[in-house]
């Protein structure tokens, strides 16, 4: 493995983040803070504790997950879609680098950005609600694994998308609904029994539940199910990317 190309891609992507600081860092922090104001303070004050945790604190892991999923997907998808759109991808495809190096560069940068954002939002939320992290190791593990997995998904979407509309399609029509319905703002115990079962088909439930467990030690599904689900996701994304590079799908005619 050659580290220079990975470093070149990673640094170029991070430089892009710095250039677009307002859009890539400030804007997600502001929008998450708005959720706090609306759901945490305004509406949340009328909701009693959930599983022994105040509602304002209860939604913190869910909100971080919401942002993490959206940002990871949009960072990575845009990072690979834009060179494809502008044509400058020729350089990437003609460079003497392996598929793994390309993925590590792009996905690594996208995940780093999301993790950084997650930590910033965690710090911000501490201003609104008193926070405790019961299992810091697991909290970081979930943060890192989710950021990488969804950056991989974003990378796949960026390669698949053949226009800006499609680039937005999956985040808007799939990721956002799944996250909102994935227990970011509620515990699945609060749903009618039928929907409690249906919601188990939503993969985001497992991510939010595991992440929330790392904060408060309470969860909707078991820790093993959460870890298993995210590893399954990771494996599916890795297999898809490996297939993309092997066949040249949407990259090489």
């Amino acid at each position, binding site marked *: 493995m*050659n580290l*220079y*190309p990975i*470093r*070149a*891609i990673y*640094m*170029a992507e991070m*430089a*892009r983040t710095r*250039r677009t600081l307002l859009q890539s860092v400030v804007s997600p922090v502001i929008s998450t803070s708005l959720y706090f104001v609306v759901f945490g303070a305004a509406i949340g004050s009328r909701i009693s504790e959930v599983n022994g945790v105040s509602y304002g604190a209860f939604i913190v892991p869910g909100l971080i997950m919401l942002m993490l999923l959206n940002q990871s997907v949009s960072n990575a998808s845009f990072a690979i879609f834009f060179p494809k759109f*502008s*044509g*400058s991808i*020729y*350089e*990437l*495809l*003609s*460079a*003497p*680098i*392996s598929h793994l190096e390309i993925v590590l560069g792009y996905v690594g940068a996208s995940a780093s950005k999301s993790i950084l954002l997650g930590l910033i939002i965690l710090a911000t939320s501490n201003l609104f609600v008193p926070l405790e992290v019961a299992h810091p190791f697991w909290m970081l593990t979930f943060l890192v694994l989710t950021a990488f997995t969804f950056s991989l998904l974003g990378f796949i979407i960026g390669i698949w998308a053949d226009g800006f509309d499609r680039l937005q399609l999956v985040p808007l029509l799939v990721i956002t609904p799944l996250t909102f319905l994935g227990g970011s703002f509620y515990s699945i115990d609060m749903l009618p029994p039928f929907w409690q079962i249906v919601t188990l088909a939503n993969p985001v439930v497992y991510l939010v539940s595991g992440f929330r467990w790392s904060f408060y030690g309470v969860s909707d599904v078991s820790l093993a199910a959460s870890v298993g689900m995210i590893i399954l996701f990771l494996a599916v994304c890795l297999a898809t990317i490996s297939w993309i590079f092997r066949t*040249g799908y949407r990259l*090489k*005619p």
Partner: protein
Amino acid sequence: MNDPIISINGLNKTYQGGFQALTRVDLTIQRGEIFALLGPNGAGKTTLISVVCGLVNPTEGHVLVDGFDNVRNYRQARERIGLVPQELTNEAFETVWNTVSFSRGLFGKAPNPSHIEKVLKSLALWDKRNNRLITLSGGMKRRVLIAKALSHEPRILFLDEPTAGVDVELRREMWEVVRQLRDNGVTIILTTHYIEEAEEMADRIGVINRGELVLVEEKAALMSKLGSKQLTLNLHSPLTELPASLQRFELSLAAEGYELIYTYDGSKEEEGYGISELLTTLEREGITFKDLHTRQSSLEDIFVDLVNPKEYP
């Protein structure tokens, strides 16, 4: 000279829609030469380059770059190649320095600011190093693409239509840059529409049309074909066959015997088969003509004949 740096063998490319872009292309590029690939739009020039550079998967055939298979040993093959694409594509908001340094890293080389400085200076980009690409003119952007391709010190440089849409002065400058590169031992393959460019730059010329390589020849050999001229005489009365005394001129008849065509070059004059001898012989034979015209074939004619034989018989 037989020191191939690129060997293309039996290359076929059929795109998904069924369009055959390349048909059995075999081509050898010699180390240190400037090779010009000529062809009309859609002939397969860019596809051929793209296959060599790894941008397009071939349907059949293989490519060796300095002895390395460009699929199996893609690292060794690709690190030897720099590619300047036809389209002006780049990261609009990056600076010249950053984008060129990025390319070097992408090609697996350790940072070397003094090399980047040398490349930027040689392309008259040094003053613009801190400018964002979006602020540069088209010609400057083209140079940035060349700088990117040279950032990792390639031994082979592909220039896909390097001077398309570039003004005359800049075109001359580009040619100068290409010559300097060749003097430094870089092998150059350029595609072009401009015959003038091929004539000016190339050691050898390949003509590609409808995916087939129809001709590969030393420029000097092509130029000797260029040196030939054609005299056409419009006769008063048609000839059915040529008199014996005219045989040595190797004439041909056209337009049902009304046209007598004589193809000649400087050597025929020296051998005593020149125009004056021909005209004297015609007068002696009593063959009279009402008009005459001469034309000199250009590389353009050869090119047009090759790529469009039916339309231009």
